[in-house]
C-alpha cells in the first residue's frame, strides 16, 4: 500500500515535470517562428516531408472511407426510403468528424512518428548538441520549421480527405447504387453550411495538427538518446496523439455543434 502511494506520487511528479518541460518547449518553439519565416526554404523542405509525403495515404484513405460511407449509408437510409439523403450523410460525417479526426490520426502515424524518430536520432547522434555548440539554437532551427509545417499541412490534408471522401461517396452512391445525382448534391448543399460545418471542420484539424506536431516533436526532443529510447518515444507519439485527438474531438464537437 505504502509502495503504491509512493509510486503514484512518483508518477504524478514526473508527469508534472514532463508537462512543464513540454510547455517550455512549446513556448520556445513558438518564439522561433519569427526566425523561420524570413527563411521560407526551411519551411518548404519540411512541408515536403510532412505534407507532400502524407498526400498519398490521406487521399487513398479518404477515397475508401467515402466509398464505405456511401455503401453503409445507402443500406441504412434505404430502409427508411431516404436514399436521397445519402449525400448529406456522407458529407456531414466527413466534414464534421471523419475528415479532421481520421486525417489527424493518419498524420500522427505517418508524419508524427517520423518526426519523433528523426528528432530522437538527431539527439542520439549529438546533432542537436553539435548545433548548440555551433551557436545555433536547435529548437528554432530544427523544431520550429517542422512544427509550422505540421500545423499548416493538417488542415490542407483534412480538407483533401473530406473532398475526396465526398467524391468516393458519390461514386458508390450515385454511380453504383443508383441514387439520384441531383438529389445527392442538392440535399447535401442544402444541409451543409459553409461556416457551421466546413469552417468548424477546418478549425478542428488546425487544433489537431497543432497538438500532434507538438507531441511528436516534444517526444523526439525529450527522448532518451538510445535506440530503445527512440523506439519508445515513437510509440508514445502515436498513442498520445490518438488519445489527444479523440479527446479533443469530443470537446470541440461539444463546443461547436452541441450547445453544451
Amino acid at each position, binding site marked *: 500500500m505504502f509502495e503504491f502511494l509512493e509510486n503514484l506520487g512518483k508518477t504524478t511528479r514526473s508527469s508534472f515535470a514532463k508537462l512543464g518541460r513540454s510547455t517550455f518547449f512549446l513556448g520556445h518553439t513558438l518564439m522561433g517562428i519569427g526566425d523561420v519565416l524570413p527563411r521560407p*526554404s526551411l519551411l*518548404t*523542405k519540411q*512541408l*515536403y516531408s510532412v*505534407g*507532400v509525403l502524407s*498526400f498519398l495515404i490521406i487521399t487513398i484513405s479518404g477515397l475508401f472511407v467515402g466509398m464505405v460511407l456511401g455503401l453503409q449509408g445507402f443500406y441504412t437510409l434505404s430502409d*427508411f*426510403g*431516404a436514399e*436521397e*439523403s445519402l449525400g448529406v450523410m456522407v*458529407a456531414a460525417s466527413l*466534414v464534421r468528424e471523419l475528415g479532421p479526426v481520421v486525417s489527424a490520426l493518419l498524420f500522427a502515424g505517418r508524419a508524427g512518428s517520423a518526426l519523433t524518430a528523426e528528432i530522437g536520432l538527431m539527439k542520439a547522434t549529438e546533432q542537436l548538441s553539435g548545433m548548440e555548440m555551433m551557436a545555433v539554437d536547435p529548437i528554432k532551427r530544427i523544431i520550429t520549421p517542422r512544427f509550422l509545417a505540421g500545423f499548416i*499541412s493538417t*488542415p*490542407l*490534408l483534412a*480538407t*483533401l480527405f*473530406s*473532398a*475526396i471522401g*465526398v467524391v468516393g461517396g458519390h461514386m458508390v452512391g450515385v454511380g453504383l447504387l443508383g441514387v439520384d445525382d*441531383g*438529389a445527392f*448534391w*442538392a*440535399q*447535401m*448543399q*442544402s444541409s*451543409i*453550411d*459553409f461556416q457551421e*460545418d*466546413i469552417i468548424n471542420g*477546418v478549425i478542428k484539424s488546425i487544433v489537431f495538427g497543432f497538438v500532434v506536431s507538438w507531441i511528436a516533436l516534444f517526444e523526439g526532443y525529450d527522448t532518451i538518446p538510445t535506440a530503445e529510447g527512440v523506439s519508445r518515444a515513437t510509440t508514445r507519439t502515436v498513442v498520445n496523439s490518438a488519445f489527444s485527438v479523440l479527446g479533443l474531438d469530443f470537446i470541440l464537437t461539444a463546443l461547436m455543434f452541441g450547445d453544451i
Partner: protein
Amino acid sequence: MHNSKTQDTFVGLFVASGIAALFYMAMQVSNLGSYTSGDSYTIIAQFQNSGGLKVKSPVSVAGVRIGRVSSIRLDKESHESIVEMQIDSQYNNLPDDSGASIYTAGLLGEQYISIDPGPGISGEFLKDNSKIDNVSSAIILEEMIGKFLMNKAEGK
C-alpha cells in the same frame, strides 16, 4: 539542396490542391455555391403555408430541378408566406399561368416546390419578378392525420 526545385514544385502542388479542395467543398458540398449561382431569374409565389420548405430547397418541373428557393418571408398583411425562387435562366419558357405546389419527397423527405407548366393561353412566359398566382400550399402531415382521425371519429 540539389532537388530543392522539385521539392518546391511539389509543395506548391500540395498547397494548391488543398486550397482547391477547400474551394470544392465550399462550392459543391456546402450552401456557399448557391449564393453565386450565375444566370438566373427570380419568380415569386405566395403560399398560405409553406410548411417545412427551407431556403435552398429545390424547385422542379416534372421532377427535374430547375432552381432553388432563395428566400422565404412572411407577408405582414395577409399573414401568408412569400417564397422567392431563383430559376436557371436556361428555363425561360415557363408559361405565365403555371402553378406552384409544395410537395414532400417521400414520406420523410424534404419539401420542394413543383411547378406545373400551364396551358400558356396568353403566350407570355414567366419573367424576372413574375408572380405565380395558382398555388397550392404545403401538406402538413399533422393536419392530415388530425383530419383523418376526426373523420373516423365522426363516421362512427
